[in-house]
C-alpha cells in the first residue's frame, strides 16, 4: 500500500512488455509482482483498492500499447497527392531543414515531416493547418544488432509515418489564444537569441532554454562524449534550478507557500509546454509540484512515491516512452539520487561550506554515473568517466546561465538598449562552458567504449548495488538469501554461456551497399570478413563497431579484407584504431599502394598476411577457414577479380564467401576443381549480373544464399537474372536490403536463420 505506485509502475511496465514483445513470460512476472503486492497489503480495504488500481491500470496500459501498435502497423496508401494536416509540435529549425510533427486531419494518422527551407514560405507554427505533399515512408526499424530502432523511437512520440515534403503551404494559422501566445512567445525569445548571439552560442542557448538539440555535429559529438549533453536537454536539473531560484526570491519577498505554489505551477506548465513536453521536463515539473503541495498540506513528501506516480502518469500518456533513453536516464538519475545519495552523503560530516558542496556534488554525479552505467552501456556503448569532474564545473555554470538567460531575454524585450551588455555576459558564460567541455573532451580517457550488458547481468548489477548499499541485508533466517541468489544467477549466466558457445554464428550486416560478415566461433574467436563502407556515412563505426560492442566482442582474431573497393574496405579502415584486431588478411594480387591504411595497421601492431589459394586458418578441431581464390600464380586483372574467396567449414555445414568476384574468377575456381560445394553462399558482388554464373552456382550447390546489398543502390544490384536463377534452382535467399542483418547459426549439423526486419 505504502509503495503502491512502485508496484503499479512495474505492473504497467510488464503489461506493456507483454503486449509489445508478445512474450508470454511477462504475464508470469506480472502475476508474481501482483501477488507480492497483495501479500504486502494489511487489510481487506487495502486489498480491494489494490485489486481495482492494479487491474485498471495494467489493463489501460495494455490497451494503450495495443492501440499504438495497431496504429503503427497499419498500412495506409499515401499515394494521394496532398495531405491536409495540423501541426502538432513546435518547428525544429536546423540550418537548411525544418522538422515538424503533423496530424492528418482526415484519418488522424501522424507524420514527422522534413521540410526544406525553400519548400515553404512561412515557417509553420504549432497548431497551424498546412497542406503537404511528398514521399511518405514508414520509419525504418532496427536493421542491425545493436542498431537504432527509429520506428520504436517514433512510437514514443505517437508518430506513424515519415514524410519528406516536396511542397507545402500554410493554409490557416492557429486561432486558439493560449496556444498562440505560448508559440509566439517562444518564437520571440528565439528571435532575440538569434539576433544577439553567434551561431554556436545561439544553438547552445536554445538547447539550454528549450531542450532543442540542434548543435552542429562537431559540438554535439563533443558534448555527448564529454558526458554533459544532459544540460542541453531540459531536464530535472533545469526545473530544479528554476525552482531554487523562485524559492530564494520568494523567501526573500516573504511570499506565502500557497502563492508560491500557484505562481510556480503556472510557470512550470507554461515552460513545459514551451519545451514540447519532453519526458524529463514533465517528470521534474510534476515532482516539484508534488513537493510544493506537500509543503502546503504539511504532508511528508516522499521522492520514491513521487517518482513512481509521475512514472505511472507517463506510462499512461504513452507506454512507449519507457523505451526511450531519455526516460531511463531521467528516472534512473532521480531514483539513484533518492535511494543512494542521502545515505552516502550522510556518512560524511564536513564543516567547510565550499569543500562540503564540491564533495557532495562529486558524490552526486558518481552515484548517478554508477546507477545509469548499464543504461549508458547498452544504448551508447560508451561512458565518459571524466564527466564526474566536468559536471561539477559545468552544471553550476549551466544553472547560472539558465537563470541569466531567462532574465536576459526579458530584459532584452523590456529594455533593448541593455541587450548588448546582457548578452555579452551570456556569451562569455557559454564560451567558458565550451572551453571547459573542449578541454575535457580532448583529455585522454574522456570517452571509453564499453560493451552492452545482458538483461540477467543488468539485473545482477542492480541487485548487487542495492546489496552493497545495505538494502536487503537480512539479519534473520533470510540472512543468506541474497548471496545464494547471486550465486544462482551467476551459475545461470555461466551455464547459458557454455551452451551458447557450442554454436557458430554468422551475421551478414546490413551496411547498405557493401559487404560485412561477422563469424562468431565457439571459444570466443571472432572473424570479420570486410567492413562495409560508405563515402557519406561511417558504417564501420556506426554499424560494425556498434554491433561488436553490442555483442561484447573485445577483439577480432582475424579480419579478412577481400579487396580494396571502398564498400568493403572503408569500414575496416574505421575499425583500425578503434577496435583491437590481431591479424589482417589481404589478397596478394592488388598493389600495396591501394591499401590506404597499411601504415596505421602496422602502427597498431596488426599482423598483415598476404594470402592466396591453399592457406587454411584452423580454429579448434572442427572449424577451418580455407582460402580458395586467388589461385597460385594468378595475374592481376582488376580489383573485383582479386577478391579473396574463403570457405568456412564446421562439421557438416559450410559457408562460401565470394567477395566481389565476377565470371572470370568463378571460371578459374571451377577449373581448379577444388572442393567448393557449400551449404550457404554469400552471393558475389551484391548479386550483380556479371557474377554468379549458372555453372558456378551448380558447382557450389548451396541450400541458402545471402545477398549483401543496399536499398535503391545506383548499380541496380541485385540483378533480376541472378534472383531468377536462384529461384529456379530452389535456393532460399535473403537480402540485407529487405531483411536487415541476416543471422545464421549452426551447430555443425543443423542451421537456424534469423532476420532483423521484414519488409
Amino acid at each position: 500500500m505504502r509503495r503502491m505506485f512502485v508496484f503499479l509502475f512495474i505492473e504497467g511496465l510488464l503489461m506493456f512488455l507483454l503486449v509489445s514483445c508478445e512474450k508470454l513470460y511477462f504475464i508470469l512476472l506480472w502475476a508474481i509482482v501482483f501477488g507480492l503486492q497483495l501479500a504486502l497489503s494489511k487489510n481487506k480495504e487495502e486489498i480491494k483498492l489494490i485489486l481495482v488500481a492494479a487491474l485498471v491500470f495494467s489493463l489501460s496500459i495494455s490497451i494503450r500499447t495495443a492501440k499504438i501498435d495497431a496504429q503503427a502497423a497499419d498500412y495506409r496508401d499515401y499515394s494521394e497527392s496532398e495531405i491536409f494536416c495540423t501541426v502538432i509540435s513546435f518547428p525544429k529549425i536546423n540550418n537548411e531543414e525544418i522538422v515538424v510533427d503533423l496530424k492528418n486531419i482526415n484519418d488522424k494518422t501522424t507524420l514527422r515531416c522534413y521540410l526544406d527551407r525553400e519548400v515553404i514560405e512561412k515557417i509553420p507554427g504549432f497548431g497551424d493547418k498546412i497542406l503537404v505533399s511528398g514521399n511518405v515512408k514508414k520509419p525504418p526499424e532496427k536493421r542491425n544488432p545493436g542498431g537504432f530502432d527509429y520506428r520504436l523511437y517514433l512510437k514514443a512520440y505517437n508518430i506513424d509515418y515519415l514524410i519528406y515534403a516536396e511542397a507545402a503551404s500554410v493554409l490557416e494559422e492557429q486561432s486558439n489564444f493560449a496556444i498562440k501566445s505560448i508559440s509566439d512567445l517562444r518564437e520571440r525569445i528565439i528571435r532575440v537569441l538569434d539576433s544577439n548571439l553567434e551561431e554556436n552560442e545561439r544553438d547552445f542557448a536554445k538547447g539550454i532554454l528549450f531542450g532543442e538539440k540542434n548543435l552542429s555535429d562537431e559540438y554535439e559529438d563533443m558534448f555527448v562524449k564529454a558526458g554533459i549533453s544532459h544540460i542541453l536537454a531540459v531536464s530535472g536539473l533545469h526545473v530544479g534550478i528554476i525552482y531554487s531560484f523562485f524559492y530564494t526570491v520568494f523567501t526573500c519577498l516573504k511570499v506565502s507557500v500557497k502563492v508560491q505554489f500557484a505562481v510556480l505551477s503556472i510557470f512550470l506548465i507554461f515552460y513545459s509546454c514551451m519545451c514540447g513536453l519532453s519526458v524529463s521536463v514533465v517528470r521534474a515539473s510534476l515532482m516539484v509540484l508534488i513537493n510544493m503541495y506537500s509543503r502546503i498540506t504539511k504532508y511528508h513528501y516522499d521522492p520514491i512515491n513521487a517518482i513512481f506516480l509521475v512514472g505511472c502518469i507517463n506510462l499512461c500518456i504513452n507506454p512507449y516512452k519507457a523505451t526511450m533513453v531519455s526516460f531511463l536516464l531521467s528516472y534512473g538519475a532521480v531514483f539513484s539520487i533518492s535511494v543512494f545519495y542521502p545515505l552516502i552523503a550522510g556518512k560524511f560530516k564536513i564543516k567547510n561550506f565550499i569543500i562540503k558542496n564540491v564533495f557532495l556534488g562529486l558524490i552526486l554525479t558518481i552515484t548517478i554515473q554508477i546507477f545509469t552505467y548499464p543504461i549508458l552501456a547498452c544504448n551508447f556503448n560508451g561512458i565518459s568517466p571524466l564527466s564526474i569532474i566536468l559536471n561539477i564545473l559545468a552544471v553550476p555554470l549551466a544553472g547560472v546561465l539558465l537563470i541569466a538567460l531567462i532574465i536576459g531575454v526579458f530584459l532584452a524585450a523590456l529594455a533593448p538598449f541593455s541587450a548588448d551588455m546582457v548578452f555579452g555576459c551570456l556569451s562569455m558564460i557559454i564560451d567558458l562552458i565550451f572551453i571547459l567541455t573542449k578541454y575535457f573532451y580532448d583529455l585522454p580517457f574522456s570517452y571509453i567504449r564499453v560493451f552492452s550488458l545482458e538483461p540477467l547481468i543488468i539485473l545482477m548489477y542492480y541487485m548487487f548495488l542495492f546489496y552493497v548499499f545495505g538494502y536487503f541485508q537480512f539479519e534473520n533466517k533470510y540472512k543468506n538469501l541474497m548471496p545464494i541468489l547471486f550465486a544462482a544467477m551467476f551459475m545461470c549466466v555461466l551455464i547459458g554461456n557454455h551452451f551458447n558457445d557450442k554454436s557458430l554464428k554468422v551475421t551478414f550486416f546490413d551496411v547498405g551497399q557493401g559487404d560485412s560478415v561477422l563469424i562468431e566461433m565457439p571459444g570466443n574467436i571472432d572473424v570479420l570478413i570486410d567492413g562495409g563502407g560508405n563515402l557519406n556515412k561511417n558504417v564501420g563505426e556506426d554499424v560494425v563497431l556498434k554491433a561488436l560492442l553490442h555483442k561484447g566482442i573485445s577483439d577480432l582474431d582475424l579480419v579478412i579484407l577481400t579487396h580494396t573497393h571502398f564498400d568493403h574496405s572503408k569500414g575496416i579502415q574505421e575499425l583500425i584504431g578503434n577496435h583491437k584486431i590481431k591479424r589482417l588478411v589481404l589478397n596478394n594480387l592488388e598493389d600495396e599502394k591501394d591499401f590506404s591504411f597499411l601504415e596505421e595497421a602496422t602502427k597498431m601492431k596488426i599482423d598483415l598476411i598476404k594470402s592466396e589459394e591453399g592457406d587454411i586458418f584452423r580454429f579448434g578441431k572442427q572449424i577451418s577457414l580455407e582460402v580458395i581464390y586467388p589461385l597460385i600464380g594468378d595475374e592481376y586483372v582488376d580489383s573485383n577479380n582479386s577478391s579473396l574467396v574463403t570457405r568456412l567449414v564446421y562439421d557438416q555445414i559450410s559457408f562460401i564467401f565470394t567477395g566481389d568476384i565476377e565470371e572470370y574468377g568463378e571460371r578459374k575456381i571451377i577449373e581448379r576443381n577444388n572442393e567448393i560445394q557449400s551449404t550457404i553462399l554469400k552471393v558475389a558482388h551484391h548479386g550483380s549480373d556479371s557474377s554468379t554464373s549458372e555453372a558456378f552456382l551448380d558447382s557450389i550447390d548451396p541450400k541458402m544464399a545471402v545477398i549483401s546489398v543496399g536499398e535503391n543502390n545506383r548499380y541496380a544490384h541485385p540483378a533480376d537474372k541472378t534472383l531468377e536463377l536462384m529461384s529456379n534452382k530452389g535456393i532460399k535467399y535473403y537480402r540485407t536490403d529487405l531483411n536487415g542483418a541476416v543471422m545464421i547459426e549452426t551447430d555443425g549439423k543443423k542451421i537456424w536463420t534469423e532476420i532483423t526486419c521484414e519488409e
Partner: protein
Amino acid sequence: MIEKILFIENGYCPTCKRVLFFTEDHMCQKCLESLEAIRLNRCLKCGREILNPGIRACRDCISMEYKFNRGFSAYGYDHKIKDIIYLMKFGNRPGLCRFAGKMTYRKLEKENRLGFIEDKDLIIPVPLSKAGLNERGYNQSELLALGLTSQWNVSEAANIVHSNNLIKIKETAHQRDLNRRERLKNVVGAFKITDPEKIRGQNILLVDDVMTTGSTLNECSNVLMGAGAKNVDILVFASVDD
C-alpha cells in the same frame, strides 16, 4: 487516503537515511537491530545510562532528591537516538513518536521489565504548553505513551493514558538553552493538575521523550505527589548518560 498512498511519513530511515521500501516501521531493520544490541548499565533509580560500569546510581540521583520513585529509560542519547528525537520534536513526525513508544515497549519486553508499566493505574505524559502544542500539532510524549500502550490489550489501554489532567500553564524557555541550575528554576510552577480526584491514591507512570537533568520530570512528579498520588514512576524514550 492520499497521505497513505503518496505522502508517507516513513519514507526514509531517520538514522541511516536508507529508503524504507516496504516496511511499516519507521526505522530500517538494521538500525533497529543495532539499537537493540546495546546493553545499558542503568542507574538504579532514574534508569539513566551510566558510563562507568562500577557505579550503580547516577550523580544526579545521589546529589538531589528526585520526587519520583523509580525510572526506566529505553535508550541512551547517542547520535542515532538524537536524530529520532529531533524528528519527533521538530520534524512533524507523529507516527515516529508512536513508533518510539512501540520501541520502548519492545525494550521493556526484552529486558523482562514489563512489570514496571503493567502495575500502573494511570499513564500521564509530560504536557506541552498550549502555544507549543499549536505550533507542533501534537504532543510527542502523549503519542509516545499511546504507542507504548498500543502494544497492550486494547480495552485496557483505551483510557489508561490521561493527557488532560496534568497541564502546562506557564510558557518556559527551552530547557536545552539553559544550564543545570536555571533548568531547575525554569520549570518551577509551570505545571498544574486540573482534576486532583483522579490522581489521589493512584500508581502513576509519567512519560516523556527525553531526560537530560530530570528537572521537568521532577517538577511534574512533585505536582503529582502534591495532588496525592500514591507513587510516581517515570519512563523516558532516551536519557542523556551520566
